[in-house]
């Protein structure tokens, strides 16, 4: 334990710079926050009515300046859900979302607990993958690569897949995930091994997926999406843990590719459909809801099982989607940089919006629980059976994107995370400015020019897409990562500096 030098809990209500971005009724919730140990903050049971467990979140002093009352309120809301175990948790990139806060983690008892789409989000299995290459910066004509990538990968609203699927093909993807895409020739045979869940949640079923969800999925495999989704060419700028970096096949000066996307319209539709169904189920099972977006049902109820199986299918679609974009990326780099397709290895692919049935030690006993991660990343430590054999002694790779002007990070999961956060860590930098504030503060051209001066080329469908994702709208990813590293819920392995960015 790096940080747990226990000290007397102190009340932090006098920290005046916590951002009170929601209505005045939220003022009280901030005064309930205590600081039981360094980097650890809590809100006790009773902060709002109906809490079963305390809320616990992790922040440095710097990050506490951007904490929003709305996010703390949402953390408390999660603590009111039946069957929640130990804590309603949030990682250092906590911010105000809907349902769960972004950065939220909660595990639920399989017997008494619930499953909620509000703990996953609309973008089921939004996630990140990292691909290594044998290239160094001097091998790259970055403008040419970004232009070609932009042509190859459909980006933004209205973009269509390079391959329109037939319904039976989509069904196969929903059941088998990345494997179907790889078998079709869009990947390397071993790619599936280097995805969380090996790129396929086996519990996926088609029965509870609507025709609307199918319709949205047919034309979007291999599309990036928009908003904070991106494809980035990066260079490994620093190694913090040589042994882990070596195991992950990463070295300083090496060019890598990071892809951030999710399950696109298909996943969004599944979430929409099942929230409506679970809202009714909440009433049926007499589960009081403090926020309708936390609609839920007992895990083993027909409604809970239906959502879980459909969510698993959407997760599989997301892995297939990122796999297809990996193929397009490899094809462009192989074509332009005189390297072989198979020289570009998938380091790992992580999901950061998902609910999964996992084994954890609960009060000294190994148990299956349902872990929700909404804007949080699995960070399984060494020896966990669910991570690739090659990484067994190191822990799973954890991929944390920065902003388009700041470093991303590769970390490794830890045994400490298994004990204290249900094997979870942060997922990114976390926003501090709304999109409207961003557009008032920055113009797309200014941001592009400023990044160009730093040697970073950005391409996006519009200038607004660039200004809304300006580096200044995000917290410092390095500060967020520093907190999880100090907490030992994941440890820094390498940092990656952006060279070229495609935003959706």
């Amino acid at each position: 334990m790096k940080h747990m030098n226990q000290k007397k809990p102190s009340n932090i209500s006098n920290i005046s710079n916590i951002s009170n971005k929601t209505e005045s009724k939220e003022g009280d919730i901030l005064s309930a926050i205590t600081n039981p140990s360094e980097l650890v903050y809590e809100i006790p049971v009773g902060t709002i009515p109906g809490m079963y467990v305390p809320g616990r979140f992790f922040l440095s002093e710097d990050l506490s300046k951007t904490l929003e009352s709305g996010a703390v309120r949402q953390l408390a809301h999660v603590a009111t859900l039946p069957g929640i175990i130990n804590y309603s948790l949030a990682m250092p990139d906590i911010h105000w979302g809907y349902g769960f806060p972004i950065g939220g983690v909660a595990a639920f008892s399989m017997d008494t607990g619930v499953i909620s789409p509000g703990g996953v989000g609309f973008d089921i299995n939004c996630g990140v993958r990292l691909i290594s290459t044998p290239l160094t910066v001097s091998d790259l004509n970055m403008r040419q690569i970004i232009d070609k990538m932009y042509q190859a990968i459909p980006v933004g609203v209205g973009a269509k897949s390079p391959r329109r699927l037939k319904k039976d093909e989509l069904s196969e993807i929903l059941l088998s995930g990345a494997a179907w895409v790889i078998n079709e020739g869009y990947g390397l045979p071993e790619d599936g091994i280097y995805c969380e869940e090996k790129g396929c949640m086996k519990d996926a079923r088609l029965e509870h997926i609507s025709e609307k969800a199918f319709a949205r999925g047919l034309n979007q495999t291999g599309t990036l999406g928009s908003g904070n989704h991106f494809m980035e060419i990066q260079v490994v700028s620093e190694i913090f843990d040589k042994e882990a970096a070596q195991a992950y096949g990463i070295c300083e000066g090496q060019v890598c590719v990071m892809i951030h996307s999710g399950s696109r319209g298909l996943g969004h539709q599944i979430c929409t459909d099942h929230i409506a169904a679970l809202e009714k189920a909440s009433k049926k099972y007499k589960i009081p809801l403090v926020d309708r977006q936390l609609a839920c049902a007992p895990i083993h109820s027909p409604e809970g099982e239906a959502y879980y199986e459909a969510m698993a299918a959407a997760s599989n679609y997301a892995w297939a989607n990122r796999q297809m974009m990996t193929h397009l990326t490899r094809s462009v780099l192989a074509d332009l940089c005189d390297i072989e397709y198979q020289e570009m290895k998938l380091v790992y692919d992580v999901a950061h919006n998902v609910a999964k049935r996992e084994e954890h030690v609960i009060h000294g006993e190994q148990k299956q629980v349902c872990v929700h991660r909404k804007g949080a990343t699995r960070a399984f430590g060494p020896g966990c059976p669910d991570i690739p054999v090659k990484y067994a002694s190191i822990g799973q790779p954890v991929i944390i994107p920065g902003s388009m002007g700041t470093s991303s990070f590769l970390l490794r999961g830890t045994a400490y995370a298994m004990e204290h956060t249900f094997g979870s860590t942060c997922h990114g930098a976390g926003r501090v400015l709304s999109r409207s504030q961003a557009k008032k503060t920055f113009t797309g051209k200014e941001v592009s020019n400023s990044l160009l001066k730093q040697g970073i080329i950005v391409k996006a469908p519009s200038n607004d897409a660039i200004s809304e994702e300006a580096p200044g709208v995000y917290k410092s990813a390095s500060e967020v990562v520093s907190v999880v590293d100090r907490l030992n819920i994941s440890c820094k392995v390498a940092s990656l500096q952006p060279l070229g960015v495609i935003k959706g």
Partner: protein
Amino acid sequence: MPYRELDHTADILLEVTGASIHELFCEAARALMDILYPPRVPSSSVQRSHIVSLPIEVYIDTENEELHGSYALYELLLQAFLSEILFLTETEYLVFSSFDIMVKKSHVSGMGHGVLFDEMVHGGGIGVKGISYSDLAIRKKNDEYILTIIYDI
């Protein structure tokens, strides 16, 4: 202005106003279109022959619905209506510009009109992933209906 963006760190929080519930529904849908497809060409300049129309039918099951607030049913109906618009625009590639709809207690029906998506004209917007129930509220102030709603992006 029928809608304005309020501060929300991760997503888009809107305040929409309308003289009637019907107008509120139409304005919320137009706001959704403006996010997805930032307006570059005035809709009045689109040739009539290019207009495409689609039927819109949305029902919500109000049985066993416990209603917390005067407009709770309309909030549920609006969420369902906007989710349908999102589905239609994404699968039919139709950029809606106007709506001829009737809003009843648990039912919206009518037509949406617009033009087919053209990357050069409509590209560069932000994808909306879903219509959140969180903080969804309709209230009436003086003679005006006011909606707050979060679009997940």
